[in-house]
């Protein structure tokens, strides 16, 4: 099982939609009942879960689930049925290649030069040799992919994740990742090109990217989500747990990436003289 349940693509939605969502969350905010101090175990559980907006979150979870059942999941199943595997992989690679500018910006902001180098090389190689990003040649040539988004960058800067949020359409999140999502849209050059009237080509491109991106992300987690809804007693709590664990793992991987920036032939710094 690959737990990248909700791979984050910066192409979804618009800032306006986000503002609306933020208002909706504030307006509907029902609060979970905090257990009394006389029950320290329950209180510790409550604090560890850190989901004070749980009733509201569950409402959005139910709405999302409904939308998923009637729209996104059937679309993803149809996509899997109609489009052969190699074509799906090619489309996925193209989408991920288009996301390189956002990835690179975050690599730089995270102060990870080797990651920024990987992203740059991947973009150059896959756009040319990989035919506009269809084939991921760069991974075979020693430039593997990694995750980078502004939520991770904020975490790297020491911003805490905050309470759990389940956002309409976007799914599991937290204030840090929701803010990161908006900033990533602003980082994306495609947000700013072709915005004027009479640009039908750009409009078509943006909407196809959005649509194919949503269906591609959903198709890739079909098996994982199906098996979770089948095996979990409380799927909401399971998705909450998985989302957080997965984000923590991504951030940990980022923070542990200490690859040196000096080339192999460059003499390493002299070790302190032995006494």
């Amino acid at each position, binding site marked *: 099982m690959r737990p990248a349940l909700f791979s984050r693509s910066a192409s979804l939605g618009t800032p306006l939609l986000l503002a609306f969502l933020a208002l909706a969350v504030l307006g509907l905010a029902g609060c979970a009942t905090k257990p009394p101090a006389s029950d320290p175990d329950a209180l510790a*559980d409550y604090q560890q*879960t850190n989901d004070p907006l749980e009733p509201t979150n569950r409402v959005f979870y139910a709405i999302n689930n409904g939308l998923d059942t009637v729209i996104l999941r059937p679309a993803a199943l149809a996509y899997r049925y109609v489009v052969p595997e190699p074509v799906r*992989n090619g489309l996925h690679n193209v989408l991920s290649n288009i996301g390189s500018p956002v990835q690179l910006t975050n690599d730089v902001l995270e102060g990870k030069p080797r990651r920024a180098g990987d992203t740059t090389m991947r973009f150059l190689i896959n756009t040319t040799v990989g035919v506009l990003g269809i084939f991921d040649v760069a991974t075979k040539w020693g430039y593997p992919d990694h995750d980078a988004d502004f939520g991770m960058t904020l975490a790297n800067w020491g911003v805490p994740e905050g309470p759990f949020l389940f956002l309409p359409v976007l799914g599991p999140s937290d204030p840090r990742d929701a803010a990161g999502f908006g900033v990533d849209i602003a980082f994306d050059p495609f947000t700013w090109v072709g915005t004027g009237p009479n640009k039908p080509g750009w409009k078509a491109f943006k909407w196809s990217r959005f649509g194919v991106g949503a269906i591609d992300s959903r198709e890739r987690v079909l*098996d994982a989500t199906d098996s979770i809804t089948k095996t979990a007693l*409380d799927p*909401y709590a399971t998705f909450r747990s998985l989302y957080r*664990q997965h984000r923590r793992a991504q951030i940990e991987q980022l923070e542990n990436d200490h690859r040196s920036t000096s080339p192999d032939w460059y003499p390493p710094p002299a070790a302190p003289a032995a006494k």
Partner: protein
Amino acid sequence: MILRRSLLTLVAVPALLPVSARAQSTEKASAFVKSTGDRLVAIVNGPGAAAGKRAAMTQILNSDVDVDGIGRFCLGRFWRQATPDQQKRYLELFHQVLVTNITAKLGEYQGVTFTMGRARMQDDEAVVSTTVVRPNNPPTGVDWIIADPASAPKIIDVVAEGTSLRLTQRQDYASYLTHNNNNVDALISAMKNQIAQNGNQAG
């Protein structure tokens, strides 16, 4: 001079011992994971009906996995609140849930292979890293947490891409119990339902 050297040796030897013991533990843990993994892969990719595979899987779970320990961990603070009878019924069901959930996924893992990575000690437990490769899927990093690696190795957790199996299960149960008046009997009947539903599909 000689005295000083032998003194040094005396000091150095005990200091070195834990290091080599740890190295031995990680080696044993790696060998253990390799052998369990090989058997799992053989079951998944092997011929035979679902019922036979389920039986073989149960055998591996009973011999190589500390199912009771994981079960206690997953019930968390509710383990102490449960009566001995509830604890017993819960653990019996937990064994079945684990087998059912794993057998339900066998189809997804057709053609699976894995490669061994490095092993390290974390407190008293060994963490053995592997990379699991399924056809048409990106490779997945899977860590196996092994208790008592030197004497009686048992798997106590599986961490796939940073998500822990037992922690996820524990938070699932905790949430279910919180929404059902902390009633362990409610959890037990929910587990029964689940086995009845998923077990039929798995055959």
